[in-house]
């Protein structure tokens, strides 16, 4: 079981490394979206400091969305997905492997970039730490929940737009607790409660999401 999981993760990472441009494009999308906000709302540091957690988190949601269609689309096109569905290992486990690989490729870079972008918003250093931590805990949930949407829209007309319509409402709790953690730490309340809830969402998301995703994939493969 674990060998299959490792094999799927390794395979997806290797494929992603062969097409690094995709990863870099999603990262730059994140950077550009975040940089647009000061241009839109003005450069006053006070205002930017208040906006920073929300802006960074929303941009992280959008950047994750951008890379979701590729989670299954390539494998679907060349028939790999059908072979994976036929494999003796449960499809849910294989999906879990793909979700982990997706997070390593799409989620982790955001976590690494976030502190740098937070400095642009003049966030104090402890808030920067909480922001990074909240993204680290929360982005796995984004990959997990997103996988359901990606599987449902597999091979569907207008899949990209539809995907955001399906997945963004489900991302709302992650956004609330993620951005809330930073807010709470800035206002002196302490981020523990938010981070714990975020952790619960991430664990629940990563643990449960592969099963509906696998069901959706089987529907798509029929």
């Amino acid at each position, binding site marked *: 079981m674990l060998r299959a999981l490792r094999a799927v993760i390794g395979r997806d990472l290797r494929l992603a490394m062969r097409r690094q441009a995709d990863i870099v494009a999603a990262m730059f999308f994140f950077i550009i979206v975040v940089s647009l906000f000061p241009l839109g709302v003005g450069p006053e540091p006070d205002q930017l400091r208040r906006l920073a957690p929300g802006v960074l988190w929303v941009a992280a949601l959008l950047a994750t969305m951008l890379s979701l269609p590729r989670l299954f689309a390539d494998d679907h096109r060349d028939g790999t997905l059908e072979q994976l569905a036929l494999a003796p290992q449960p499809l849910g486990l294989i999906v879990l492997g793909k979700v982990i690989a997706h997070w390593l490729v799409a989620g982790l870079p955001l976590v690494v970039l976030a502190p740098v972008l937070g400095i642009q918003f003049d966030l104090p250093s402890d808030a920067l730490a909480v922001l990074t931590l909240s993204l680290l805990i929360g982005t796995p949930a984004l990959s997990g929940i997103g996988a359901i949407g990606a599987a449902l829209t597999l091979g569907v*007309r207008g*899949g990209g737009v*539809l995907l955001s319509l399906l997945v963004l*409402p*489900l991302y*709302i709790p992650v956004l609330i607790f993620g951005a809330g953690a930073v807010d709470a730490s800035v206002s002196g*309340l302490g981020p523990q409660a938010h981070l714990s809830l975020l952790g619960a969402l991430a664990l629940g998301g990563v643990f449960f999401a592969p099963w*509906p995703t696998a069901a959706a994939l089987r529907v798509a493969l029929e």
Partner: protein
Amino acid sequence: MSNGLINWFKYASPQSFYPLAGKLIPWFWALAALFGVAGLSIGFLLAPTDAQQGEGYRIIFLHVPASWLSMFIYLVMAFWAGLGLAFNIRLSGMMASALAPTGALFAFLSLWTGALWGKPMWGAWWVWDARLTSELILLFLYIGFIALQAAIDDPRRADKAGAILALVGVVNIPIIYFSVKWWNTLHQGASVSLTKAPSMAAMMLWGMLLCALACWMYSIAVALMRVRTIMLERERHTDWVRALLTNQE
């Protein structure tokens, strides 16, 4: 199955459900009209004017039933969807897709009437109150469901994909609701609260309950009408639909 009980499975097939639905629809329309007239006349003629809110409060006779129904229909939709997924019944998927537009309509109505009520009472069309926000998200979930089904051409696949989405949504609704609620209370003290005075005049309550029943009956009638149309459309290649259509001409 011949033990004297009604054979419910018989009505799982569109062919036998189609005439049954046709027979039931007028009854539900009649009940909807009856409850609607009763509820609205109590609401507008008999219920007293509210001490604090004046006459403006009377919009709750539409607003509260619409909110209830929007949530209830999502549950019913998810129930049919789950049933369809578990037992592979064609009719369940059709019921789920027939219910979705009505649910979305009620979610929209609830937001719209809420805005109309909020402007004179709170002085704002929209506040980021926990209930308003979660109702808005519920509307998004409905739109997502409808959009997903509309984007898939094969009705069987559309049913199953929609069913998975509806079930995922049902699991998420409590999470979304509580996260929005905590978000609202943690961000700032709510400047306005939706909780009304606990005591409500009995007449108001009766008016509201009757209106809720009217909306409920209306939903059933409309969903049945829609499911009949969906049945004809999807089963157009079958003999019974051909026979039905040629008999009508």
